[in-house]
């Protein structure tokens, strides 16, 4: 971990525990996404499927150090692992993908567009960059009310999204307000098909931090331990009032942009490079090598994950779709401000 900031105020992390914990969600995420991708290929999903293959360590390492009910977590499209770690039930992912009326989005939105804002998980809109200021606003509100205590907000984003004005405005605003915001940039080398060389010209995205007057940390996104430690630092700093933190993880998207995309534009060399390491395989090896879990433990975990995922998919598939006729077609909460315009 190349830590460009000078000092850490982090409470020491219990690495074995955090590692085991994160690993579990990584396995669950990978299992779910492999499954949902196969359901997609079988033609049973309407719309797209977006997976976080290769990004599970970076995603889980952040969320596993957050507390549901206290912290805020704004995942993006490749954060199945983080979502699970933050307490999103797998069944909700299955329901949202499969269009069950029981999903948190009730069929109104799909796939990775899910969340439960009241539980600290804003539901992403597609427009990249737009969620960071929302997390900022949540923190801002808590502080205004004196309810912030030492909670933090974490927002996930990709390398490509750093080109949006939205990310800039949100980071700058958070820095001015010194909000306890951790922004996790998963630099997976591509924005859809576009390589980072067509997205920014700085040597390292972490160099953005100084321009906001915030702290920045680089981590090896393929290495769960490094991710855990980097986020631990960032989170402790944020919790202790040091303002926004930028954490950049270097890794490679080990999948297409969506399951419709074969990612032919990712070169063999890049796949074979150290960026292309599969964080899950690396973590599994480390688990066993460090004796934080046995081969057997891993297998049990993997089998349990398969079972959980299969059950969730089965259950969600069997659930009813939303019914257009009985559906509540009102975009406004306030009844008195509903238009009298007759329905089509």
């Amino acid at each position, binding site marked *: 971990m190349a830590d460009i900031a000078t000092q850490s105020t982090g409470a020491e992390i219990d690495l074995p525990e955090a590692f085991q914990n994160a690993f579990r969600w990584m396995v669950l995420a990978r299992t779910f996404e492999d499954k949902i991708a196969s359901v997609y290929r079988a033609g049973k999903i309407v719309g797209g499927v977006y997976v976080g293959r290769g990004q599970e360590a970076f995603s889980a390492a952040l969320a596993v150090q957050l507390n549901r009910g206290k912290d805020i977590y704004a995942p993006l499209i490749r954060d199945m692992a983080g979502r699970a770690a933050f307490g999103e039930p797998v069944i909700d992912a299955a329901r949202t993908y499969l269009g069950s009326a029981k999903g948190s989005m009730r069929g109104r939105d799909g796939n990775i567009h899910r969340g439960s804002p009241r539980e600290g998980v804003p539901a992403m809109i597609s427009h990249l960059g737009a969620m960071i200021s929302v997390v*900022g606003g949540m923190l801002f509100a808590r502080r205004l009310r004196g309810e912030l205590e030492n909670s933090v907000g974490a927002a996930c984003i990709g390398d490509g999204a750093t080109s949006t004005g939205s990310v800039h405005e949100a980071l700058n*605003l958070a820095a001015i307000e010194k909000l306890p915001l951790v922004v996790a940039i998963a630099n997976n080398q591509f924005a859809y098909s576009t390589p980072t060389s067509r997205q920014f010209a700085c040597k390292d995205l972490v160099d953005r931090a100084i321009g906001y007057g915030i702290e920045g940390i680089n981590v090896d996104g393929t290495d769960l331990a490094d991710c855990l430690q980097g986020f631990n630092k960032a989170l402790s700093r944020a919790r202790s009032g040091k303002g926004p933190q930028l954490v950049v993880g270097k890794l490679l998207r080990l999948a297409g942009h969506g399951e419709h995309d074969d990612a032919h534009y990712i070169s063999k060399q890049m796949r074979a490079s150290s960026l292309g390491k599969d964080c899950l395989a690396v973590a599994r090896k480390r688990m066993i090598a460090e004796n934080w879990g046995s081969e057997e433990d891993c297998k049990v975990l993997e089998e349990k994950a398969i079972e959980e995922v299969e059950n969730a998919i089965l259950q969600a598939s069997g659930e009813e779709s939303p019914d257009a006729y009985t559906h509540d077609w009102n975009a406004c909460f306030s009844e008195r401000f509903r238009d009298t315009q007759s329905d089509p």
Partner: protein
Amino acid sequence: MSITYLEAIRQAQAKALADNPNVFIYGQDIGAFGGAFKATKGLFEKYPDRVIDAPISEDAMIGLAVGAAIEGMRPIIEMQFADFSTVGFNQIVNQAATHYWRTNVPCPITVRLPSGGTPGSGPFHSQCMEAIYAHYPGIIVMTPATVEDAYSMLLEAIYTDDPVIFCEHKYLYYHLKADSLPKQSLPAESARITRSGRHATVITYSAMIHEALLAADSLHDDGYEIEIVDLRCVKPLDIDTVLGSVARTGRALVVGEAFPWGGVTAEVISRIASEGFHLLDAPPAKLNARDTPIPYHPDLWRYHRPTASSIKSAIQKLLKD
């Protein structure tokens, strides 16, 4: 005591801040400076935590408001000019407007847009954006035309559990005065018969109400009684009040200061034509600004937007039809 439209807006905010600790105001230069138009003058001194200067970041300002609203706050965002809300457009129409429908969690934000033309303000400090926001589901758009409405509707906006775009007209800021602030008021969603008449109805809102009133005064001398409906809220539209008036007069002119293609005038006419066709004794007419950017020069500007005199001509034409 005499209270301006601008002072009404200031006082509504003062009251909301006093009554509800969840209310806060966020905008450029609204703190110690009191805002570009002084709509928040003195509020920072009383509520230093809740009257907060924002950076020039309209996108993030709206994003922040949405986040705060999710947490139960009732943010008021002041745009320095309505025209700059284009920069926060995405967050308004895609983040705020869809929030309740998507997540079941209401998003009670109020975005104040100092709107409309004044002489010399030019293409980027004069716009009327009500139609742009009204097009999107999930947004309420208010366009008060009186001092009393500026006050009571802003309070309603703040306490509404949906995003409200509050179009306050800059031309009315100082020009319009009332004796006192209202204790009671017509609900924001209801249109008002501002003036009753029987020969024709002019349906309009915001600053154009006053141009229409002048036109009606002038036609009164010619023996015509013109009814004027103040829409007050352009989304939702209180079409019942509109149709009630058209039923009485048989003639409708819809006036708007915004650009001519689409917008409030088109929506109102289309609703009248669809829902009140048989009430009409003549084709419904509309009058808008010209289809160009808003000119800087006062001589051009006066000819760009509808005025008492162009409204009068349009009514005269309508009366002949």
